């Protein structure tokens, strides 16, 4: 490892980071040294091992304490009142009446919250918008207070769909207009019209994707407590430092007086990336009453105003030569965002997935009178891939070509959007290994599969028809700076990895301990990751964009290498050698090529109370490479052509995310993404009442997520090698990618089974029957 002399090269430089599919330029502090990369030749024993989750015992015994489990002496319970209309205004409310209800301590309505919180407006712009709040010594009393508040509303004309919001004379969703600034967003390379003229075959389709709801089983929640002018918030969040920044800004207090803690959270999936109404309500009531306050969303609020993946309509045109070589890809997409949000655009994947000289995307983002979108696992890419991959499958059918062969033909060796190399790319290995294990392409030609084979298909007279389909995936996910970590060796040689990051259930706690133990030559049992507290831990960013492992992992490794260096410097004189003569393994310092050794503990005890603290930070990404994770998924389905019911029989998923720190936990992430993708494909769709704009399925019964009974045999695995160009751990992000190709793979299998395309997800029975009816009517 090379150390950068202090005051030598530049300390602060700019680097480019991909976050949730968007590119951001950031300033980064250059690390003091950069450890040699763990390339494929590196001999690692703890990194790459299938060790159990570090917090598994807490989780299986019910001892893991989540936000809603925090109970403080004198704690009050807060409840948020929400607008029952899509647009209009609140005309009356009675805070005094609410406060008079027994058990109620406080209530707030329009005008009662600081401006920075943006809480409780009088103008309503979506159904479910917070308009008031009550806090009481029990939730039942708070509910009584809410009724006493007697809110009344005046509804006006609203626009809850893209068509309604973009029609001439549409009601204004936002004062500045209903189109997001910069819409339509156009990006192109080459000449699509010329490319289409060159094509032998052109397919044009319109695809529609639904609003998908994150539906974490743990609703959003916060507990707030003030001690003097210092505020502590326990929050179920993917970003403790972001919550701290937002709360400090909204309440106009210094960040140093806000402490945000998150030890366990019950799922995030992109919906828990910052402070929200419940956070401010808890903090404000706690300040006003002088007592701790807990505010947890109801399931109805969670399903109606806690984030969503926006719907899209994508008009796709693809041209190709007879041999399958793409000549043009064009997409025009409409995205209704809700009252707020950002351009998590479906167009990007069209520019990146395949080698094609002529590509154009045009995306129009509109504000509508509905709850704001938020990042949802692979935002933009899951939506865009349904359009692009479905169109590729339609093109394969038109060409009479195997869809896998079509993709191999158009594999791109470089990032075609940015004209630079990938840091690593094993997509072709994903194709080959996925196809092999699935037995692609179909029943007639299938090789034996390692997946349990479902019983043979029924005779041709049966209404049950089987089909197979596949789709591919890419997701830019290199992580990046800034991220800091410290490694502390305690007097008894137990080791703490300190990093202000979050474990969403992804396994960050486990992975950071593995990385640090490997780098130190320590036993894994001696190493513990301490995370989730802004007051005591060094900064890391949000756990979004599949960024935690490739961002915090290298910082933890560097901190561990730094601590190891100090440990060796302390051990060398004790062993009468130079530090360079020493190596470490199993929490022991050994003199190379001899049998002389000391345990870490013998060294630290000899140091007395001197504490070894290693410091690490995440360096910049390579400037000349695009870092992305790739994959291919294969699906077999059975469709009942009499009822339209689709059953997925099996899924095979092959992904490349560089080095895998813990294959067991990584495969769990793949399965999780695939299962959410299966829900997206088959069931999940937010439904708003066209007459009122109010959501009709704001629960977990009518908004249906997959149950254990819906899930087929899944064989999910990784191919590929350590990506030493991405960062010095060789790991890329992997949690979001698996959701991307599942829906188009399932849709392709349905088309294969019934001989008709269903170009709108979810693939509900009535959509399948309608597609069958149209096909027969032709």
């Amino acid at each position, binding site marked *: 490892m090379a150390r950068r002399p202090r005051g030598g090269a530049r300390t602060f430089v700019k680097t480019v980071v991909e976050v949730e599919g968007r590119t951001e330029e950031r300033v980064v502090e250059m690390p003091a040294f950069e450890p040699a990369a763990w390339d494929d030749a590196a001999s690692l024993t703890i990194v790459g091992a299938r060790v159990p989750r570090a917090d598994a015992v807490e989780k299986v015994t019910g001892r893991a304490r989540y936000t*809603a489990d925090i109970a403080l002496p004198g704690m009050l319970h807060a409840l948020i009142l929400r607008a029952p209309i899509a647009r209009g205004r609140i005309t009356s409310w009675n805070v005094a009446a609410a406060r008079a209800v027994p058990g109620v301590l406080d209530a707030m309505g329009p005008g009662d919250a600081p401006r920075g919180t943006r809480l409780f407006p009088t103008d309503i712009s979506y159904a479910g918008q917070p308009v008031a709040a009550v806090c009481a010594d029990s939730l039942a009393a708070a509910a009584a207070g809410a009724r006493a508040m007697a809110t009344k509303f005046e509804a006006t004309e609203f626009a809850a769909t893209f068509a309604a919001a973009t029609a001439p004379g549409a009601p204004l969703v936002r004062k500045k207009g209903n189109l997001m600034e910069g819409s339509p967003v156009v990006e192109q390379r080459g000449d699509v019209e010329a490319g289409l003229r060159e094509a032998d075959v052109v397919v044009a389709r319109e695809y529609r994707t639904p609003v998908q709801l994150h539906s974490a089983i743990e609703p959003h929640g916060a507990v707030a407590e003030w001690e003097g002018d210092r505020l502590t918030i326990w929050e179920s969040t993917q970003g403790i430092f972001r919550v701290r920044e937002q709360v400090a800004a909204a309440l106009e207090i210094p960040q140093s007086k806000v402490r945000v803690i998150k030890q366990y959270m*019950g799922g995030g999936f992109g919906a828990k990336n910052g402070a929200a109404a419940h956070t401010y309500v808890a903090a404000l009531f706690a300040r006003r009453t002088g007592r701790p306050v807990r505010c947890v969303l109801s399931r109805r609020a969670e399903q109606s105003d806690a984030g969503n993946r926006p719907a899209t309509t994508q008009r796709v045109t693809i041209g190709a030569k007879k041999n399958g070589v793409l000549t043009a890809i064009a997409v025009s997409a409409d995205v209704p965002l809700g009252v707020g949000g950002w351009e998590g655009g479906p167009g990007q994947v069209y520019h990146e997935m395949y080698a094609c000289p002529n590509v154009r995307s045009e995306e129009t983002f509109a504000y509508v009178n509905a709850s704001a979108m938020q990042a949802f696992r692979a935002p933009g890419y899951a939506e865009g891939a349904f359009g692009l991959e479905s169109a590729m499958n339609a093109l394969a059918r038109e060409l009479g070509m195997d869809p896998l062969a079509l993709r191999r033909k158009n594999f791109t060796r470089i990032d075609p959007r940015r004209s630079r190399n990938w840091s690593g790319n094993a997509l072709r290995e994903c194709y080959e290994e996925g196809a092999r294990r699935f037995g692609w392409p179909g029943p007639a030609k299938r090789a034996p599969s390692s997946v349990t084979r479902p019983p043979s298909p029924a005779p041709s007279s049966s209404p049950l028809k089987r089909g197979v389909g596949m789709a591919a995936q890419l997701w830019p996910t290199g992580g990046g700076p800034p991220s800091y970590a410290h490694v502390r060796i305690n007097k008894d040689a137990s080791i703490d990895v300190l990093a202000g990051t979050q474990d969403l*259930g992804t396994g960050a706690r486990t992975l950071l301990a593995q990385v640090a133990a490997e780098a130190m030559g320590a036993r894994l049992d001696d190493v513990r990751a301490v995370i989730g507290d802004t007051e005591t831990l060094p900064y890391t960013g949000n756990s979004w964009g599949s960024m935690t492992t490739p961002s915090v992992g290298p910082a933890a490794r560097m901190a561990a290498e730094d601590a190891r260096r100090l440990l060796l410097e302390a051990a060398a004189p004790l062993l009468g050698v130079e530090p360079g003569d020493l190596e470490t393994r199993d929490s022991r310092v050994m003199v190379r090529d001899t049998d002389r050794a000391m345990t870490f503990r013998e060294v630290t005890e000899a140091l007395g109370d001197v504490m070894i603290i290693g410091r690490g930070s995440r360096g910049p990404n390579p400037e000349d490479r695009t870092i992305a994770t790739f994959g291919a998924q294969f699906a077999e389905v059975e469709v009942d052509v009499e009822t339209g019911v689709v059953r997925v029989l099996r899924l095979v998923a092959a992904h490349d995310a560089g080095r895998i720190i813990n294959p067991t936990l990584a495969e769990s992430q793949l399965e999780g993404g695939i299962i959410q993708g299966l829900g997206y494909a088959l069931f999940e769709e937010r439904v708003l009442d066209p007459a009122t704009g109010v959501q009709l399925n704001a629960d*977990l019964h009518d908004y249906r997520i997959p149950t254990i009974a819906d899930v087929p045999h899944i064989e999910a695995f990784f191919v590929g090698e350590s990506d030493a160009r991405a960062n010095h751990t060789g790991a890329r992000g992997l949690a979001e990618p698996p959701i991307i190709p599942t829906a188009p793979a399932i849709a392709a299998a349905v088309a294969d089974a019934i001989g008709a395309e269903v170009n709108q997800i979810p693939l509900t029975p009535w959509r399948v029957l309608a597609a069958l009816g149209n096909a027969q009517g032709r």
Partner: protein
Amino acid sequence: MLLTVNGRPVELTPAPGERLLTLLHERLHLTGAKFGCGQGECGACTVLVNGRLTYSCLALAEACDGAEVTTIEGLAAAPPHGPLTPLQRAFIAYDAAQCGYCTPGQLIAATYLLSHDPAPSEDSIRTAMSGNLCRCGTYPKIIAAIQAVARGEFGAPTRPVAEPGRGA
């Protein structure tokens, strides 16, 4: 009213309309059973009441007078205080918990299943466990964990769940 919770007698007075989940969570500080929906859709609050699988968010606390309640905390004490049950060990070994929020309910439902059907078919597992939602997508691992316990991979149950009228 009198309640036996995880083998210990408890005397308390529930508020009118109070649900068992609130009573366990807020009064007894047994926070293993989780609030997920409050309306019997997700199963995160699953406990055993007199040996029956129960959504504690729906059960009226008053109606549980005299009942024996088993929560996740009653399956086994965490090490080093006591051994985990085979199902708990299998959930760890097969990585059947991601965020872990639904896990207590899943474990109670799986415990109930195996106490009635020690060698369930995969279809039986899917049916029996379909009242417990998991958004992280641990289902394949839950099936694998239950099957492993049924195969005896994790030994005999360390503490069978007592069920009145059926013997332990």
